[in-house]
């Protein structure tokens, strides 16, 4: 159920993000979604890609500090209040969202990438509530 994500440390200085993207592009890594979370001085660039292992190796070799983590990809119902339904389902269970961002999807599905403090329980609860938790194959599939 869980999706691998890699996070790269970047200093908030001109050209740093562009340099990283170029490194990945030169290595032929296909980026599905990027999300930069920053403090003003530095940031973490979170990357979702079908080639997570390759992306990590490429970035590490280029000298960046990298860490891998796991997130959930959730298909949000395509109607008003769709995201609210996801969060409401978790409300009574004391599961919190650390961060979330939208997954760029070719098929037009509305998919959110969410990092919960307890991924396994969150996945379980959401599925029981009838929400779609998408696995890696499905996420990058046709």
């Amino acid at each position, binding site marked *: 159920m869980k999706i691998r994500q890699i996070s790269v440390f970047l200093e908030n200085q001109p050209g740093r993000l562009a340099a990283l993207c170029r490194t990945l592009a030169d290595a032929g890594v296909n980026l599905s979604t990027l999300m930069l979370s920053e403090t003003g001085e530095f940031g973490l660039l979170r990357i979702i890609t079908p080639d997570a292992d390759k992306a990590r190796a490429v970035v590490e070799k280029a000298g960046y500090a990298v860490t891998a983590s796991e997130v959930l990809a959730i298909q949000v119902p395509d109607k008003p209040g769709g995201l609210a339904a996801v969060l409401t389902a978790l409300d009574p269970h004391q599961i919190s969202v650390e961060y979330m961002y939208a997954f760029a999807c070719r098929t037009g599905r509305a998919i959110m990438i969410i*990092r919960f403090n307890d991924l396994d329980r969150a996945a379980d609860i959401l599925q029981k509530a009838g929400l779609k938790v998408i696995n890696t194959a499905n996420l990058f599939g046709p």
Partner: protein
Amino acid sequence: MIPHLWNDLEGTFFPESALDYMPESRLREVQLQRLKAVTALTYEKVKLFRERMDAKGLKPADVTTLADVSKLPFMVKTDLRDTYPYGLFAVPMSDVVRLHASSGTTGKPIVVGYTAQDMEVWKQVIMRTLYAAGYSRGDIVQNMYGYGLFTGGLGLHGGLEGIGATVIPISGGNSERQIMVMKDFGVTAICGTPSYFIHLIETAQKMGIDFRRDLKVKRGVFGAEPWTDEMRKYIESASGVKAFDIYGLSEIIGPGVGAECECQDGLHIFEDHFLAEIVDTKTLEPVPDGTEGELVITTLSKQAMPVIRYRTRDITAFETSRCGCGRTCRRIRRISRRSDDMFIIRGVNVFPSQIETALLKTESSLPHYLIVLTRKGGLDQMEVRVEITGEMLTDNVGAMEQLQKRFGKSIEQITGLHAAITLAQPGTIPRSEGKAKRLLDQRNLTN
């Protein structure tokens, strides 16, 4: 010559080390005899020294006791630069068999020379260094000091061959290959800078190699930069490699001026070749034993480039107790700072080693760092740039901000000063060859 020692040291006695155990009265006699000779030689052959002696109205014959050394003029690093390249040589170039040079941070490097006898002395003091750290024939030694103009690589190399060890002259760099060689060649001992070895410990971890389980490295001699007890603790606990401090500087001979023994409690100076004094950094007068000051060294047997009362800029003190190992040559405390590395900010003296200690209190391994001093609106600012490694990184911006705060707090606890902490991308702080650059002073003092 000193028969009573042979029984105590049965099985581990090496003839070269006998001089480490010379009766003290005899050692002082040897020193005085050599001091007189080197003063006379330098006076005769080296113009700079002769002029300074004459200016003080001194003649070599005025040296009649060891204490008289304190009458002689000092030499400093700029003397070597001002007389570049051969101005301090006391023998014709045809007698010089080796040249080394230091990488000067600004302008011209400094050049040092060796006669064939100097090379033999150098080999012997390195052999004594290695024996003191427990190296012997049968060891397979990976020498990670840089080979070339730097005295570290070739200096250690000569002594390693002298004791009959198997030397791997790998030099620095290419961390993964270093670990591969350590494993595949069955390396039992190493030489290098402590900061580079700490980096290698981390490289091995990344490669899934455990020092204790997968490697045979048991001991290492480390030098060429000041390091701390925290770094030793880290090296020994993270890798199981027993870490010995060695001391030397190119201006004197290179590595081989002093070394730790198995007691790891201060560095024995090879006093039959080097006369050590410790002087007050301001008055330049000798301080009592046990008191900190600047280490000043006179070479007692060097021929090609004898150096009288060289101010090392290294801050240390003589140990006052006898060493448990039985060596009679005196010990200095490990050097963790240099007087010229010290900086003053808002009236407070700060040493880079204090920043190092603070960073090591927060992270178990020493990150690469740089202290940057600036002046804004007449007020000095200290920034410490700390490179983030993959191990320090978490996928949580808040946690990274906490780390940043912990670094700042730790520095404040140790120095009493506020430091702005910048978390930097790996590889963005410039490395200089061999030694890490720790301080960038950008204060424009005319403002």
